[in-house]
């Protein structure tokens, strides 16, 4: 599983390295993003609360990860 992810990540890194944003025409123009710029549309409106909630779940559930970025250890036993 880890090898597959490394390959996928490396492919994405190459994509990021070779893709510019000028070649693809954005179908939502910058001036059409007023709704998306509204603070209530932030994917993480309250970072300090989100970090705490992840800790609450990690300590009480078997599942972990899938939260959108690299994070640290739980520190709970």
């Amino acid at each position: 599983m880890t090898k597959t992810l490394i390959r996928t990540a490396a492919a994405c890194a190459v994509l990021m390295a070779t893709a510019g944003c000028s070649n693809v025409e954005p179908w939502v123009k910058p001036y059409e993003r007023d709704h998306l710029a509204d603070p209530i549309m932030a994917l993480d409106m309250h970072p300090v609360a989100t970090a705490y909630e992840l800790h609450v779940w990690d300590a009480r559930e078997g599942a972990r990860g899938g939260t959108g970025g690299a994070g640290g250890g739980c520190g709970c036993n």
Partner: protein
Amino acid sequence: MPSRHFDFAILLLLLTLLPGALCATVLPEDRADVLYHRYEGGGVTIDGPSVLLRKQVGKNFSLSANYYLDMVSSASIDVVTTASPYTEERKQGSLGVTYLYGNTLMNVGYTRSDESDYAANSLNFSVSQDLFGQMTTVTLGYAVGWDEVGKSNDPEFRRDVDRQQYSLAVTQIVTRSLIMSFAFDAITDEGFLNNPYRSVRFLAADQPAGYQFEPEVYPNTRTSGAGAITARYRLPWRAALHGSYRYFSDTWGIESHTGEIGYVHPWKYGITFSTRYRHYTQDQADFYADLFPRSNAQNFMGRDKELSTFQSTTIRAGASWEFVSDGWSVIEKGSLNLFWDRIRFDYENFRDLRVTGAAPGEEPLYGFDADVVQLFVSFWF
């Protein structure tokens, strides 16, 4: 820390430096959050503060720092049936640096957590790149962790745990009102992964209760994968609807599904209400049993209820009040926030051993309610 993983992180950094500045990507906002948190349920009370600061330095750097404290008072079902109630503290500190280069954000962070019998360290790297006219953001992450496990009643006891985490996240603007993200994490653990205090129980006809306890034995390795999809939609009136789904599985045989839906509604006087519903289910680990047939019944044995088959549901009510919206002194904006979550845990094969008189394995199933309260103030400057 294996060197090949650092090589991987450096490769990511170098590759993402290549595109150069094509569109305007910005550093995270300068802000400060001071939070009081309280968890109460199942005989456990945990509360304490958390402080999060983020400040831009120069044009290209943003620094972040977090201090977090858990004050634990535990008389959980595990504790009252196999040990004694206890109190303890867990302190955690984090430092991070974010560097902006063209369309790329690079982040490095370190976290240290200390308890009387457990210390955890982690170092994380991530690279985030805006693509296609800032319609798409791709984030790659890697974290390495190293923990030291102790035992309060045995000063000689010391075990290690090594962790690695690989992350990929893609955020996509779909329409003028819809944004979606996909995230995948692979995590590997190696070392002493069980709780040194927890026990499994097995049938023992010569005991008054009909059963006896012995220490848990877990595998020394665990690898897990989690994939999640999240969507956030701006409704025709000023409100946001959001939902997410996560699938998880690991090499211990645990499989879980998590679904969540929520609604955010700004009202008058700078007040915003929010609510959400979350449902979580999981199947048990292969080596979990509430009651083993005999001592040392198999090579790996666990009776941690977090490894059992169970489900939980969470309902939230929350409100935020923006008490500074037009700037005051150096503060651009300030908000006061209160969130309350009620969580119900229902275990399908973890039994309540506080109930006496029942035959072993016939005790009622365990379940409990927990209340989670967060009160915090946020400032943007």
